[in-house]
């Protein structure tokens, strides 16, 4: 469609040129004609001026008057010569003077061009002058001879002889002027005709010009219409394409979600298969299958990330972050990978880098994991270095910059250009050797851009690579203990509620029981989603608190099942999600599945009360009638890596110290069992088991304020699918090592003071 238009536009070009040359030619001729018209008019003006200036007809009058005066003088002269009348000298003198003045005028006037016979006319004038010379002897200013009849008579014949030539002169001038007038008339007529012709031509040209201009305007309008139509089509096409792309992204996101659920089942089955007494060969096959499944899961996760980034569904959860702790986490996860090769891993923060900053810690870690694991992947020996420093960005704002430098294979420029495009890796042979989805860098870059930064690369083949990730540096305001900000009434609901808690972890159950008890509600527990659905069928509950990660049937599945129940009273029971991950995506998924609210762990009594109040309205008094202190600042406020004091304080708001101590003790006492289960999952290569156990441990640890244990459990949960086995083993070891430290820290906080100190090395 567009190309056809283009072709037509191209085909129009020669026509355009032709039209423009026509236009230029017309314009040129127009200018010429205008010049000609100006010339003609100038000539006409000149002619007219000649008429005015010369006054030829006026000259004819002068000649005529000279002749008349000549005749009057002759008459007077004849009378003076007549003996019979007295001589009237005065009159004769006057007549003579007037005649002389006329002759003088003729002599002085520019008559040359009017003389039909110049010689003859000059002779006539000369004759008159001769007469004047003789007459002046008596009639001049100073008379030399007396004016008497004799003098008059003597000159009479000469005067009379002038009559005929004067008449000739008059006639000649008259004829000459007539001829000239005629000639001038002809010239004027010609000029007029020429002017008329030029004007006609000018009119034709102007019409032609106007015609061309009109056509041009019409064509422009036509072309504009075509262009507008084209623009509309393009807009529509673009909208369709965008819609299609959005639909694809959504489809991809949904599919990877949908795939993950059965996939987890598949992995569970694979792990069950292992227990059925296999031959070594079958075990080998099974390991390969499990590895492939792990890879596939990582791939699915990447695709999910990517499609969410693309559809703009990723929102950053920006919160104050302890940068050192973040770097420690990164190091903990990456060091085992580096140690598997003869590689040194250095992580170094410049002195000016602030301790705390505002960022989405999970996403920052994700980018750093990606960059570091790439570097380790493509470096066989030497070192991988992560440098952190601050600098001023291009826009003048402060930036924090993470630089990952390796001594690996490096890349040429063509590869670097391709690097951030999806599914492109350094080169195909390497990708085969190293595996990976090829989405990592694109995801990292998109995330970085979401944070107002970018990821860029500098590299040369054989000289290693240097990836730089920078983002806007925002430093949180220093935390001061806020003077009891009035909390939005954290009041319990008006009546005791029957609450069903679906939670698989025993410690979390205890914790929730304590919380609900504190708020005056009755807690009932089920161990998984399936049981929850069944319990709901048996009796009525006011609200369900639903953990998302549970064996048999997870929270989302259980919610869908509940919403599908035939009994309307049961299918509309309010459901509140409990989860350890705070991703917007998870939240959306819960709400889409039909849940009413969403609580992230650690769950505080305030959060729980607020949620229940949203669902059931508030009452007038709390059971213990003491105003609840404000919720302590969350986990990041304390930098102690082992125990989060604020979380402990929060837990203490919900329950007695003894109760919390019992729970902490129970959790820590269960820890060896947990470690055993984790080890078993690692040994049997059952990432699903590993994830489930790690997640359960993480939730409980978070609720009880054991931040180091929670972080390690989270690392296990996150890394279950893609970390190599030895590294997971290291994390499990770390978890085990942290148990006595946590116990000690809890004792230090007086949480475990009632307990006899057990052996430190358990």
């Amino acid at each position, binding site marked *: 469609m567009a190309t056809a238009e283009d072709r037509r536009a191209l085909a129009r070009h020669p026509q355009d040129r032709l039209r423009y040359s026509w236009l230029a030619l017309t314009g040129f001729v127009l200018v010429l004609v205008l010049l000609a018209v100006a010339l003609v008019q100038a000539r006409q003006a000149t002619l007219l001026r000649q008429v*005015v200036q010369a*006054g030829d007809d*006026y000259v004819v009058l002068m000649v005529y*008057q000279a002749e*008349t*005066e000549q005749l009057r003088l002759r008459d007077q002269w004849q009378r003076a010569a007549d003996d019979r009348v007295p001589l009237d000298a005065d009159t004769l003198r*006057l007549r003579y*003077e*007037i005649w*002389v*003045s*006329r002759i*003088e*005028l003729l002599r*002085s*006037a520019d008559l040359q061009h009017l003389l039909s016979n110049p010689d003859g006319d000059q002779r006539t004038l000369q004759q008159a002058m001769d007469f004047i010379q003789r007459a002046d002897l008596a009639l001049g*200013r100073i008379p030399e001879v007396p004016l008497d009849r004799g003098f008059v008579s003597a000159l009479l014949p000469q005067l009379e002889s002038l009559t005929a030539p004067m008449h000739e002169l008059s006639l000649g001038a008259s004829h000459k002027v007539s001829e000239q007038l005629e000639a001038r008339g002809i010239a004027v007529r010609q000029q007029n005709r020429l002017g008329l012709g030029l004007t006609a031509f000018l009119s034709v040209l102007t019409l032609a010009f106007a015609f061309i201009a009109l056509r041009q305007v019409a064509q422009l309008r036509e072309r504009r219409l075509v262009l507008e139509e084209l623009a509309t089509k393009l807009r529509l096409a673009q909208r369709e394409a965008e819609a299609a792309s959005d639909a694809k992204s959504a489809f991809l996101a949904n599919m990877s979600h949908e795939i993950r659920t059965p996939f987890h089942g598949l992995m569970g089955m694979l792990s069950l298969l292992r227990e059925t007494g296999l031959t070594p060969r079958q075990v080998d096959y099974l390991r390969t299958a499990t590895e492939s499944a792990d890879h596939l899961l990582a791939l699915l996760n990447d695709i999910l990330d990517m499609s969410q980034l693309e559809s703009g569904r990723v929102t950053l959860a920006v919160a104050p972050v302890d940068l050192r702790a973040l770097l420690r986490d990164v190091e903990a996860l990456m060091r085992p990978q580096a140690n598997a090769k003869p590689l040194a891993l250095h992580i170094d923060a410049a002195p000016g880098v602030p301790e705390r900053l505002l960022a989405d810690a999970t996403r920052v870690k994700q980018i750093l994991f990606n960059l570091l694991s790439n570097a380790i992947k493509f470096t066989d020996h030497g070192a991988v270095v992560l440098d952190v420093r601050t600098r001023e960005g291009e826009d003048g704002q402060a930036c924090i910059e993470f630089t990952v430098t390796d001594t690996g294979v490096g890349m040429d420029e063509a590869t670097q250009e391709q690097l951030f495009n999806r599914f492109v890796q350094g080169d195909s042979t390497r990708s085969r050797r190293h595996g990976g989805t090829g989405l990592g860098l694109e995801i990292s870059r998109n995330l970085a851009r979401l944070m107002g930064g970018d990821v860029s690369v500098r590299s040369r083949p054989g000289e290693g690579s240097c990836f730089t990730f920078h983002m806007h540096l925002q430093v949180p305001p220093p935390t001061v203990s806020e003077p009891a900000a009035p909390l939005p009434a954290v009041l319990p609901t008006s009546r005791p509620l029957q609450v069903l808690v679906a939670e698989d972890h025993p410690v979390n159950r205890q914790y929730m029981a304590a919380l609900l008890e504190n708020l005056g509600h009755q807690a009932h527990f089920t161990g998984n989603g399936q049981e929850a659905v069944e319990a709901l069928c048996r009796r009525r509950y006011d609200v369900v608190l639903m953990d998302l990660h549970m064996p048999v049937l997870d929270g989302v599945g259980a919610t869908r099942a509940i919403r599908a129940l035939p009994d309307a009273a049961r299918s509309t029971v309010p459901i509140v999600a409990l989860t350890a991950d705070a991703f917007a995506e998870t939240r959306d998924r819960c709400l889409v599945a039909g849940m009413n609210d969403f609580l992230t762990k650690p769950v505080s009594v305030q959060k729980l009360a607020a949620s229940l109040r949203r669902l059931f309205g508030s009452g007038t008094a709390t059971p213990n009638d003491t105003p609840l202190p404000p919720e302590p600042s969350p986990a990041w406020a304390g930098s102690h890596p082992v125990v989060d004091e604020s979380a402990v304080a929060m837990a203490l708001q919900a329950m007695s110290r003894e109760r919390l101590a019992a729970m902490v003790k129970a959790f820590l006492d269960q820890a060896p069992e947990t470690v055993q289960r984790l080890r078993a999952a690692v040994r049997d290569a059952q990432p699903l088991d590993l994830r489930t156990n790690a997640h359960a441990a993480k939730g409980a640890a978070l609720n009880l304020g054991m931040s180091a244990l929670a972080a390690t459990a989270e690392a296990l949960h996150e890394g279950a699918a893609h970390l190599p086995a030895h590294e997971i083993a290291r994390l499990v070891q770390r978890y085990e090592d942290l148990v006595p430290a946590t116990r000690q820290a809890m004792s230090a906080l007086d949480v475990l003071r009632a307990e006899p100190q057990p052996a430190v090395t358990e």
Partner: protein
Amino acid sequence: MRIRRSHPNHPGTGRRSLLCLGGGLLLAAAWPVRALVAASGPVVLTVGGRVRMPNQGDAAHFDMTMLAALPQTSFSTRTPWYAQPRRFTGPLLRDVLVAAGAQGDVIRLTALNDYRVDMPYQDAQRHDVIVARLLDDKPMAVRDKGPLFVIYPFDSRPELRGAVYYSRSAWQLRKIDVL
């Protein structure tokens, strides 16, 4: 073109003071205020027609002395009759008409050779038309288009440089009739 005017005996001033003095006495005849003296020398110009101050019959006769006694105006101007600009001197036509107490619509000029031409009375008011008696400060003989020559200040306004005004410039002037 520069027009220079001279007042040999300031007759205008005198006339105005007389007007003030005799204003009450001469209520019926506020105009004329001074009778025109009779011509003592040869008459060179006769003003006839609607003349209220005749000094000879119905007409006012002027000799050269009387004309010279009126305020004089001089200017140089180009003319169709001379190759070079010439200097003309004489009384303003309107002063001559005032002196004769002549008022009307048309001024008819007659020359010695009976050339006759009419000019609107307003021309004398609108333009500084003079009755020239000196050409380059010398009296004009009849053969030099004298003794009197009606001259418009042609160079003062472009529209005066046309056949109509040239034709109204009568030379050898002998008679003015105010109609």
